[in-house]
Protein backbone atom coordinates (compact mmCIF):
# COMPACT_ATOMS: atom_id res chain seq x y z
CA UNK A 1 0.00 0.00 0.00
CA UNK A 2 2.87 2.40 0.79
CA UNK A 3 1.27 5.77 1.43
CA UNK A 4 -2.43 6.44 0.99
CA UNK A 5 -4.80 9.18 2.03
CA UNK A 6 -6.07 8.52 5.51
CA UNK A 7 -9.78 8.66 4.65
CA UNK A 8 -9.31 6.05 1.95
CA UNK A 9 -7.72 3.64 4.41
CA UNK A 10 -10.54 3.79 6.98
CA UNK A 11 -12.08 0.36 7.40
CA UNK A 12 -9.21 -1.26 5.53
CA UNK A 13 -6.45 -3.47 6.88
CA UNK A 14 -3.27 -1.50 7.52
CA UNK A 15 0.15 -2.99 8.13
CA UNK A 16 3.12 -1.63 10.06
CA UNK A 17 5.12 0.79 7.96
CA UNK A 18 2.15 2.11 5.99
CA UNK A 19 2.05 5.89 5.80
CA UNK A 20 -1.32 7.64 5.97
CA UNK A 21 -1.41 11.08 4.43
CA UNK A 22 -3.44 13.73 6.16
CA UNK A 23 -5.15 15.96 3.63
CA UNK A 24 -4.43 19.68 3.71
CA UNK A 25 -7.24 21.87 4.91
CA UNK A 26 -7.25 24.16 1.92
CA UNK A 27 -4.85 23.40 -0.86
CA UNK A 28 -5.26 26.89 -2.35
CA UNK A 29 -4.18 28.74 0.78
CA UNK A 30 -1.13 30.89 0.09
CA UNK A 31 2.15 29.80 1.62
CA UNK A 32 3.41 32.12 4.26
CA UNK A 33 7.14 32.44 4.68
CA UNK A 34 7.07 34.77 7.65
CA UNK A 35 5.50 34.78 11.08
CA UNK A 36 4.21 31.80 12.97
CA UNK A 37 4.38 28.57 11.08
CA UNK A 38 1.09 27.91 9.45
CA UNK A 39 0.16 24.30 9.24
CA UNK A 40 -2.53 23.78 6.69
CA UNK A 41 -3.05 20.18 7.71
CA UNK A 42 -6.20 19.10 9.50
CA UNK A 43 -5.57 18.38 13.15
CA UNK A 44 -5.95 14.71 13.97
CA UNK A 45 -5.83 12.63 17.11
CA UNK A 46 -3.95 9.40 16.67
CA UNK A 47 -4.91 6.50 18.85
CA UNK A 48 -3.33 3.09 19.41
CA UNK A 49 -1.28 1.73 16.55
CA UNK A 50 -0.53 5.10 14.96
CA UNK A 51 2.47 7.36 15.28
CA UNK A 52 3.22 10.79 13.94
CA UNK A 53 5.74 10.99 11.16
CA UNK A 54 6.23 14.60 10.20
CA UNK A 55 2.84 15.81 9.05
CA UNK A 56 1.54 12.35 8.36
CA UNK A 57 0.70 9.25 10.31
CA UNK A 58 2.65 6.04 10.38
CA UNK A 59 1.02 2.73 11.21
CA UNK A 60 2.86 0.54 13.71
CA UNK A 61 0.32 -2.21 14.31
CA UNK A 62 -1.51 -4.62 12.08
CA UNK A 63 -5.28 -4.22 12.08
CA UNK A 64 -8.27 -2.33 10.78
CA UNK A 65 -8.08 1.44 10.63
CA UNK A 66 -10.99 3.04 12.46
CA UNK A 67 -12.20 6.60 12.44
CA UNK A 68 -14.47 8.68 14.59
CA UNK A 69 -15.55 12.24 13.94
CA UNK A 70 -14.11 14.80 13.86
CA UNK A 71 -10.64 13.38 13.30
CA UNK A 72 -9.78 10.52 15.61
CA UNK A 73 -7.98 7.58 14.02
CA UNK A 74 -6.83 4.32 15.54
CA UNK A 75 -5.93 0.77 14.60
CA UNK A 76 -8.21 -1.96 15.89
CA UNK A 77 -6.30 -5.21 16.16
CA UNK A 78 -7.19 -8.70 17.33
CA UNK A 79 -4.31 -9.07 19.73
CA UNK A 80 -4.46 -11.08 22.90
CA UNK A 81 -1.83 -9.45 25.09
CA UNK A 82 -3.09 -6.63 27.26
CA UNK A 83 -1.13 -3.43 27.74
CA UNK A 84 -2.42 -1.35 30.69
CA UNK A 85 -4.12 1.94 29.89
CA UNK A 86 -5.10 4.52 32.50
CA UNK A 87 -8.81 4.47 33.24
CA UNK A 88 -9.44 0.96 31.90
CA UNK A 89 -11.65 -1.35 33.92
CA UNK A 90 -10.12 -4.80 34.21
CA UNK A 91 -10.48 -8.11 35.99
CA UNK A 92 -7.39 -9.04 38.00
CA UNK A 93 -6.38 -12.05 40.05
CA UNK A 94 -4.88 -11.37 43.48
CA UNK A 95 -1.56 -13.22 43.63
CA UNK A 96 0.14 -12.01 46.81
CA UNK A 97 -0.64 -10.01 49.89
CA UNK A 98 2.30 -8.01 51.14
CA UNK A 99 1.76 -5.48 53.89
CA UNK A 100 -0.52 -2.73 52.68
CA UNK A 101 -0.77 -3.72 49.05
CA UNK A 102 -2.01 -6.65 47.03
CA UNK A 103 -0.26 -7.73 43.88
CA UNK A 104 -2.72 -8.37 41.11
CA UNK A 105 -2.17 -10.32 37.92
CA UNK A 106 -3.71 -8.31 35.11
CA UNK A 107 -2.50 -10.32 32.14
CA UNK A 108 0.02 -7.66 31.18
CA UNK A 109 3.79 -7.55 31.38
CA UNK A 110 3.86 -6.61 35.04
CA UNK A 111 1.71 -7.21 38.09
CA UNK A 112 -0.36 -4.28 39.26
CA UNK A 113 -0.51 -3.09 42.85
CA UNK A 114 -3.78 -2.58 44.67
CA UNK A 115 -3.85 -0.80 48.02
CA UNK A 116 -6.08 -2.33 50.68
CA UNK A 117 -7.45 1.18 51.30
CA UNK A 118 -8.70 1.41 47.72
CA UNK A 119 -11.94 -0.42 48.51
CA UNK A 120 -15.26 1.10 49.46
CA UNK A 121 -15.50 1.66 53.19
CA UNK A 122 -12.00 0.38 53.90
CA UNK A 123 -10.02 1.96 56.69
CA UNK A 124 -6.82 1.02 58.50
CA UNK A 125 -8.98 -0.70 61.13
CA UNK A 126 -11.56 -2.14 58.79
CA UNK A 127 -9.59 -4.09 56.20
CA UNK A 128 -11.37 -5.48 53.16
CA UNK A 129 -11.72 -9.24 53.01
CA UNK A 130 -9.51 -10.10 50.04
CA UNK A 131 -7.74 -13.43 49.75
CA UNK A 132 -5.07 -14.68 47.39
CA UNK A 133 -6.76 -16.10 44.30
CA UNK A 134 -9.75 -13.74 44.44
CA UNK A 135 -10.91 -11.94 41.34
CA UNK A 136 -11.13 -8.17 41.57
CA UNK A 137 -12.77 -5.76 39.17
CA UNK A 138 -10.91 -2.48 39.29
CA UNK A 139 -9.72 0.54 37.41
CA UNK A 140 -6.22 1.77 36.60
CA UNK A 141 -5.22 5.06 38.10
CA UNK A 142 -1.57 4.69 37.16
CA UNK A 143 -0.66 2.97 33.93
CA UNK A 144 2.31 3.92 31.83
CA UNK A 145 5.22 2.08 30.37
CA UNK A 146 7.74 3.29 32.94
CA UNK A 147 5.84 2.67 36.17
CA UNK A 148 4.18 -0.18 37.96
CA UNK A 149 0.46 -0.09 37.16
CA UNK A 150 -1.82 0.71 40.08
CA UNK A 151 -5.41 -0.39 40.51
CA UNK A 152 -8.23 0.94 42.66
CA UNK A 153 -11.66 -0.49 43.36
CA UNK A 154 -13.37 2.84 44.10
CA UNK A 155 -14.20 5.85 41.97
CA UNK A 156 -13.13 9.40 42.72
CA UNK A 157 -15.97 9.89 45.21
CA UNK A 158 -15.03 6.80 47.22
CA UNK A 159 -17.93 4.64 46.02
CA UNK A 160 -17.46 1.10 44.78
CA UNK A 161 -19.56 1.76 41.68
CA UNK A 162 -19.64 -1.89 40.71
CA UNK A 163 -15.98 -2.49 41.41
CA UNK A 164 -14.44 -4.68 44.09
CA UNK A 165 -14.02 -8.37 44.78
CA UNK A 166 -16.05 -10.62 42.48
CA UNK A 167 -18.11 -13.32 44.21
CA UNK A 168 -16.98 -16.85 44.87
CA UNK A 169 -18.78 -18.79 42.16
CA UNK A 170 -19.15 -18.01 38.49
CA UNK A 171 -16.69 -18.64 35.71
CA UNK A 172 -13.86 -16.58 34.30
CA UNK A 173 -12.42 -17.10 30.84
CA UNK A 174 -10.16 -15.24 28.46
CA UNK A 175 -11.02 -13.90 25.03
CA UNK A 176 -9.18 -11.67 22.60
CA UNK A 177 -9.05 -7.95 23.27
CA UNK A 178 -10.87 -7.30 20.02
CA UNK A 179 -13.89 -9.28 21.20
CA UNK A 180 -13.96 -7.43 24.52
CA UNK A 181 -14.01 -4.10 22.76
CA UNK A 182 -16.74 -5.40 20.47
CA UNK A 183 -18.84 -6.49 23.44
CA UNK A 184 -18.40 -3.17 25.20
CA UNK A 185 -19.36 -0.91 22.32
CA UNK A 186 -22.68 0.74 23.18
CA UNK A 187 -24.30 -0.13 19.83
CA UNK A 188 -23.53 -3.81 20.34
CA UNK A 189 -26.43 -6.00 21.40
CA UNK A 190 -24.70 -9.36 21.98
CA UNK A 191 -25.04 -9.09 25.76
CA UNK A 192 -28.66 -8.01 25.49
CA UNK A 193 -29.46 -10.95 23.22
CA UNK A 194 -27.68 -13.24 25.64
CA UNK A 195 -29.75 -11.91 28.56
CA UNK A 196 -32.88 -12.86 26.64
CA UNK A 197 -31.75 -16.49 26.53
CA UNK A 198 -30.51 -16.88 30.09
CA UNK A 199 -30.63 -14.39 32.92
CA UNK A 200 -27.00 -13.81 33.86
CA UNK A 201 -24.47 -11.70 35.64
CA UNK A 202 -21.46 -10.62 33.62
CA UNK A 203 -18.28 -8.64 34.22
CA UNK A 204 -16.15 -7.71 31.25
CA UNK A 205 -12.58 -6.56 31.77
CA UNK A 206 -10.71 -4.64 29.10
CA UNK A 207 -7.80 -7.04 29.60
CA UNK A 208 -9.67 -9.81 27.84
CA UNK A 209 -11.08 -11.50 30.90
CA UNK A 210 -14.79 -12.12 31.21
CA UNK A 211 -16.49 -13.39 34.34
CA UNK A 212 -20.00 -14.69 34.08
CA UNK A 213 -22.56 -16.44 36.19
CA UNK A 214 -25.94 -17.81 35.24
CA UNK A 215 -28.51 -19.82 37.20
CA UNK A 216 -26.79 -23.18 36.84
CA UNK A 217 -23.27 -24.27 36.04
CA UNK A 218 -24.47 -25.71 32.74
CA UNK A 219 -26.00 -22.41 31.70
CA UNK A 220 -22.85 -20.55 32.76
CA UNK A 221 -20.74 -22.77 30.53
CA UNK A 222 -23.11 -22.35 27.60
CA UNK A 223 -22.94 -18.59 27.99
CA UNK A 224 -19.14 -18.70 28.14
CA UNK A 225 -18.91 -20.81 25.00
CA UNK A 226 -21.40 -18.64 23.15
CA UNK A 227 -19.46 -15.49 24.00
CA UNK A 228 -16.18 -17.08 22.93
CA UNK A 229 -17.78 -18.10 19.65
CA UNK A 230 -19.13 -14.60 18.98
CA UNK A 231 -15.69 -13.47 17.85
CA UNK A 232 -15.88 -15.51 14.68
CA UNK A 233 -19.58 -15.16 13.93
CA UNK A 234 -21.25 -12.59 11.76
CA UNK A 235 -24.41 -10.90 13.01
CA UNK A 236 -26.82 -13.21 11.20
CA UNK A 237 -24.91 -16.37 12.13
CA UNK A 238 -25.01 -15.27 15.73
CA UNK A 239 -28.73 -14.65 15.65
CA UNK A 240 -29.28 -18.17 14.26
CA UNK A 241 -27.16 -19.75 16.96
CA UNK A 242 -28.83 -17.74 19.70
CA UNK A 243 -32.25 -18.62 18.36
CA UNK A 244 -31.37 -22.30 18.62
CA UNK A 245 -30.54 -21.89 22.30
CA UNK A 246 -33.55 -19.72 22.99
CA UNK A 247 -35.82 -22.58 21.84
CA UNK A 248 -34.12 -25.08 24.12
CA UNK A 249 -34.84 -23.10 27.27
CA UNK A 250 -37.21 -25.07 29.47
Amino acid sequence: MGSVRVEEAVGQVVLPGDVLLIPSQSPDAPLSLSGAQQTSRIKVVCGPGLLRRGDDLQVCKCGLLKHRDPAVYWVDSQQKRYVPVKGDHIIGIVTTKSGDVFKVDIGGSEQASLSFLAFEGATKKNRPNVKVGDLVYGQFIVANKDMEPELVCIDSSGKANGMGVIGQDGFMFKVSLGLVRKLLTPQNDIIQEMMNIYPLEIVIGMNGRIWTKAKTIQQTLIVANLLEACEYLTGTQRKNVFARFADNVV
Partner: protein
Amino acid sequence: MLPQKQTCCWAGCIWWLQPTLRGIGATPPLLHYVFLLACHRPRCLLLINSFLTGDTSVLAGVYGPAEIKVSKELHDKATIEVILRPKVGLPAIQEKSQELLIRETCESAIMGALHPRSSITIVLQIVSDAGSLLACCLNAACTALMDAGLPLRYLFCGVTCVLDTDGHLTLDPSSKQQKESRAVLILAIESVENKVLTVASRGAYSATELQQSIAAAQVAAQKIFKFYRDSARRRYSKS
Protein backbone atom coordinates in the same frame (compact mmCIF):
# COMPACT_ATOMS: atom_id res chain seq x y z
CA MET B 1 16.48 -5.28 -14.57
CA LEU B 2 16.15 -8.81 -13.34
CA PRO B 3 18.94 -11.30 -13.53
CA GLN B 4 18.26 -14.01 -16.04
CA LYS B 5 17.04 -17.50 -15.26
CA GLN B 6 15.44 -16.34 -12.10
CA THR B 7 12.86 -18.56 -10.57
CA CYS B 8 10.81 -16.87 -7.98
CA CYS B 9 8.35 -19.34 -6.64
CA TRP B 10 7.77 -17.91 -3.22
CA ALA B 11 4.33 -18.27 -1.94
CA GLY B 12 3.20 -18.94 1.51
CA CYS B 13 0.35 -20.18 3.46
CA ILE B 14 -0.93 -19.49 6.85
CA TRP B 15 -2.08 -22.50 8.66
CA TRP B 16 -4.35 -21.62 11.51
CA LEU B 17 -4.46 -24.37 14.03
CA GLN B 18 -8.07 -25.27 14.04
CA PRO B 19 -9.22 -27.00 17.17
CA THR B 20 -12.27 -29.18 17.34
CA LEU B 21 -15.14 -26.79 17.02
CA ARG B 22 -16.39 -25.98 20.44
CA GLY B 23 -20.07 -26.21 19.92
CA ILE B 24 -20.76 -23.51 17.43
CA GLY B 25 -19.45 -23.04 13.92
CA ALA B 26 -16.48 -21.02 14.94
CA THR B 27 -12.79 -21.54 14.53
CA PRO B 28 -10.99 -19.80 17.36
CA PRO B 29 -7.20 -19.97 17.27
CA LEU B 30 -6.19 -22.62 19.74
CA LEU B 31 -2.96 -21.36 21.18
CA HIS B 32 -2.08 -18.44 23.36
CA TYR B 33 -0.96 -16.40 20.47
CA VAL B 34 -1.96 -17.33 17.04
CA PHE B 35 0.61 -19.59 15.55
CA LEU B 36 1.36 -18.88 12.01
CA LEU B 37 2.98 -21.07 9.55
CA ALA B 38 4.70 -19.53 6.65
CA CYS B 39 5.58 -22.17 4.20
CA HIS B 40 7.32 -22.01 0.93
CA ARG B 41 6.12 -23.00 -2.52
CA PRO B 42 2.52 -22.77 -3.63
CA ARG B 43 1.96 -26.47 -4.15
CA CYS B 44 1.24 -27.11 -0.53
CA LEU B 45 -1.48 -24.58 0.19
CA LEU B 46 -3.35 -25.71 3.24
CA LEU B 47 -2.60 -29.36 2.75
CA ILE B 48 -0.85 -30.61 5.81
CA ASN B 49 0.25 -33.80 4.13
CA SER B 50 2.01 -32.15 1.28
CA PHE B 51 4.11 -29.83 3.34
CA LEU B 52 5.23 -32.73 5.38
CA THR B 53 6.46 -34.37 2.23
CA GLY B 54 9.33 -32.00 1.78
CA ASP B 55 8.60 -28.29 1.60
CA THR B 56 10.00 -25.90 4.14
CA SER B 57 7.69 -24.90 6.92
CA VAL B 58 8.15 -23.23 10.26
CA LEU B 59 5.72 -22.73 13.11
CA ALA B 60 6.09 -19.42 14.91
CA GLY B 61 4.70 -18.15 18.19
CA VAL B 62 5.14 -14.77 19.83
CA TYR B 63 4.75 -14.16 23.54
CA GLY B 64 4.97 -10.62 24.72
CA PRO B 65 5.24 -8.08 26.15
CA ALA B 66 5.53 -10.38 29.15
CA GLU B 67 7.09 -10.42 32.59
CA ILE B 68 10.85 -10.87 32.72
CA LYS B 69 13.59 -11.90 35.13
CA VAL B 70 15.34 -8.95 36.73
CA SER B 71 18.72 -10.23 35.50
CA LYS B 72 17.56 -10.05 31.89
CA GLU B 73 15.59 -6.82 31.92
CA LEU B 74 16.67 -3.71 30.05
CA HIS B 75 15.47 -0.46 31.56
CA ASP B 76 14.91 1.36 28.28
CA LYS B 77 13.61 -1.29 25.91
CA ALA B 78 12.10 -4.72 25.59
CA THR B 79 14.34 -7.77 25.71
CA ILE B 80 13.82 -9.77 22.55
CA GLU B 81 14.51 -13.44 22.64
CA VAL B 82 14.37 -15.85 19.74
CA ILE B 83 14.22 -19.59 20.27
CA LEU B 84 14.76 -21.77 17.23
CA ARG B 85 13.87 -25.40 17.75
CA PRO B 86 15.16 -27.91 15.24
CA LYS B 87 12.93 -30.69 14.00
CA VAL B 88 14.74 -33.30 16.07
CA GLY B 89 17.23 -33.02 18.89
CA LEU B 90 18.42 -30.04 20.83
CA PRO B 91 19.43 -26.67 19.39
CA ALA B 92 23.13 -26.67 18.52
CA ILE B 93 25.63 -24.01 17.45
CA GLN B 94 24.10 -23.56 14.02
CA GLU B 95 20.66 -22.86 15.50
CA LYS B 96 22.20 -20.46 18.01
CA SER B 97 23.84 -18.43 15.25
CA GLN B 98 20.61 -18.37 13.27
CA GLU B 99 18.72 -17.30 16.38
CA LEU B 100 21.11 -14.38 16.73
CA LEU B 101 20.58 -13.33 13.14
CA ILE B 102 16.80 -13.52 13.42
CA ARG B 103 16.90 -11.67 16.74
CA GLU B 104 18.94 -8.80 15.35
CA THR B 105 16.57 -8.51 12.40
CA CYS B 106 13.49 -8.56 14.62
CA GLU B 107 15.07 -6.08 16.99
CA SER B 108 15.44 -3.54 14.22
CA ALA B 109 11.76 -3.88 13.36
CA ILE B 110 10.19 -3.98 16.84
CA MET B 111 9.67 -0.69 18.65
CA GLY B 112 11.11 -2.04 21.87
CA ALA B 113 11.16 1.35 23.59
CA LEU B 114 7.37 1.23 23.90
CA HIS B 115 7.56 -1.76 26.25
CA PRO B 116 10.57 -1.30 28.53
CA ARG B 117 11.39 -3.94 31.17
CA SER B 118 9.45 -6.64 29.42
CA SER B 119 10.29 -9.61 27.28
CA ILE B 120 9.21 -10.52 23.79
CA THR B 121 9.84 -14.17 23.02
CA ILE B 122 9.64 -15.54 19.52
CA VAL B 123 9.58 -19.31 19.30
CA LEU B 124 10.25 -20.88 15.93
CA GLN B 125 9.74 -24.58 15.48
CA ILE B 126 11.10 -26.08 12.31
CA VAL B 127 8.47 -28.41 10.92
CA SER B 128 10.28 -29.41 7.78
CA ASP B 129 13.32 -28.18 5.94
CA ALA B 130 13.52 -28.36 2.17
CA GLY B 131 15.90 -25.47 1.65
CA SER B 132 15.66 -21.70 2.27
CA LEU B 133 15.10 -22.42 5.94
CA LEU B 134 16.45 -19.21 7.42
CA ALA B 135 14.41 -17.06 5.06
CA CYS B 136 11.34 -19.04 6.00
CA CYS B 137 12.10 -18.48 9.70
CA LEU B 138 12.32 -14.74 9.09
CA ASN B 139 8.98 -14.73 7.27
CA ALA B 140 7.34 -16.79 9.97
CA ALA B 141 8.74 -14.51 12.69
CA CYS B 142 7.46 -11.41 10.92
CA THR B 143 3.95 -12.75 10.34
CA ALA B 144 3.77 -13.88 13.96
CA LEU B 145 4.91 -10.47 15.23
CA MET B 146 2.40 -8.78 12.99
CA ASP B 147 -0.39 -11.00 14.22
CA ALA B 148 0.49 -10.56 17.87
CA GLY B 149 -0.08 -6.81 17.39
CA LEU B 150 3.36 -5.71 18.51
CA PRO B 151 4.44 -2.22 17.46
CA LEU B 152 6.69 -2.51 14.42
CA ARG B 153 8.59 0.09 12.41
CA TYR B 154 8.25 -1.93 9.24
CA LEU B 155 7.65 -5.47 8.09
CA PHE B 156 10.49 -7.60 6.92
CA CYS B 157 10.95 -10.74 4.93
CA GLY B 158 13.74 -13.14 4.12
CA VAL B 159 14.77 -14.16 0.63
CA THR B 160 17.38 -16.78 -0.23
CA CYS B 161 19.46 -16.43 -3.40
CA VAL B 162 21.87 -19.02 -4.68
CA LEU B 163 24.57 -18.56 -7.30
CA ASP B 164 25.75 -21.58 -9.20
CA THR B 165 29.11 -22.05 -10.89
CA ASP B 166 27.85 -20.49 -14.15
CA GLY B 167 26.82 -17.37 -12.30
CA HIS B 168 23.10 -18.05 -12.61
CA LEU B 169 20.95 -16.71 -9.85
CA THR B 170 18.07 -18.66 -8.34
CA LEU B 171 15.68 -17.45 -5.70
CA ASP B 172 14.16 -19.68 -3.07
CA PRO B 173 16.27 -22.77 -3.76
CA SER B 174 15.66 -26.34 -2.66
CA SER B 175 18.18 -27.97 -0.35
CA LYS B 176 19.72 -29.76 -3.32
CA GLN B 177 20.23 -26.52 -5.22
CA GLN B 178 21.60 -24.97 -2.06
CA LYS B 179 24.17 -27.76 -1.62
CA GLU B 180 25.34 -27.67 -5.24
CA SER B 181 25.65 -23.91 -5.36
CA ARG B 182 28.78 -21.79 -5.30
CA ALA B 183 27.32 -19.19 -2.95
CA VAL B 184 24.17 -18.77 -0.87
CA LEU B 185 22.91 -15.39 0.25
CA ILE B 186 20.09 -14.83 2.70
CA LEU B 187 18.78 -11.30 2.59
CA ALA B 188 16.26 -9.66 4.88
CA ILE B 189 14.39 -6.79 3.23
CA GLU B 190 12.22 -4.23 5.00
CA SER B 191 8.92 -2.98 3.64
CA VAL B 192 9.10 0.82 3.96
CA GLU B 193 12.12 1.76 1.91
CA ASN B 194 12.77 -1.71 0.53
CA LYS B 195 16.26 -1.68 1.98
CA VAL B 196 18.41 -4.57 3.09
CA LEU B 197 18.34 -5.28 6.82
CA THR B 198 20.48 -8.38 7.07
CA VAL B 199 22.79 -10.32 4.82
CA ALA B 200 24.01 -13.77 5.70
CA SER B 201 26.10 -15.56 3.15
CA ARG B 202 28.19 -18.61 2.48
CA GLY B 203 30.63 -19.11 -0.39
CA ALA B 204 32.38 -16.77 -2.80
CA TYR B 205 30.62 -14.10 -4.84
CA SER B 206 31.56 -10.82 -6.46
CA ALA B 207 30.26 -7.38 -5.60
CA THR B 208 28.19 -7.34 -8.79
CA GLU B 209 26.61 -10.63 -7.90
CA LEU B 210 25.72 -9.27 -4.47
CA GLN B 211 24.06 -6.28 -6.12
CA GLN B 212 22.20 -8.57 -8.50
CA SER B 213 21.01 -10.73 -5.62
CA ILE B 214 19.82 -7.69 -3.71
CA ALA B 215 17.90 -6.44 -6.73
CA ALA B 216 16.28 -9.85 -7.21
CA ALA B 217 15.47 -10.14 -3.52
CA GLN B 218 13.84 -6.71 -3.52
CA VAL B 219 11.54 -7.77 -6.33
CA ALA B 220 10.70 -11.03 -4.57
CA ALA B 221 10.11 -9.13 -1.32
CA GLN B 222 7.27 -7.21 -2.94
CA LYS B 223 5.47 -10.49 -3.54
CA ILE B 224 5.97 -11.54 0.04
CA PHE B 225 4.69 -8.21 1.36
CA LYS B 226 1.67 -8.55 -0.85
CA PHE B 227 1.10 -11.98 0.61
CA TYR B 228 1.38 -10.52 4.13
CA ARG B 229 -1.27 -7.97 3.26
CA ASP B 230 -3.57 -10.55 1.72
CA SER B 231 -3.30 -12.83 4.72
CA ALA B 232 -3.93 -9.93 7.11
CA ARG B 233 -7.05 -9.10 5.08
CA ARG B 234 -8.22 -12.67 5.35
CA ARG B 235 -7.59 -12.58 9.09
CA TYR B 236 -9.65 -9.44 9.59
CA SER B 237 -12.37 -10.23 7.08
CA LYS B 238 -14.71 -11.60 9.73
CA SER B 239 -14.65 -8.81 12.26
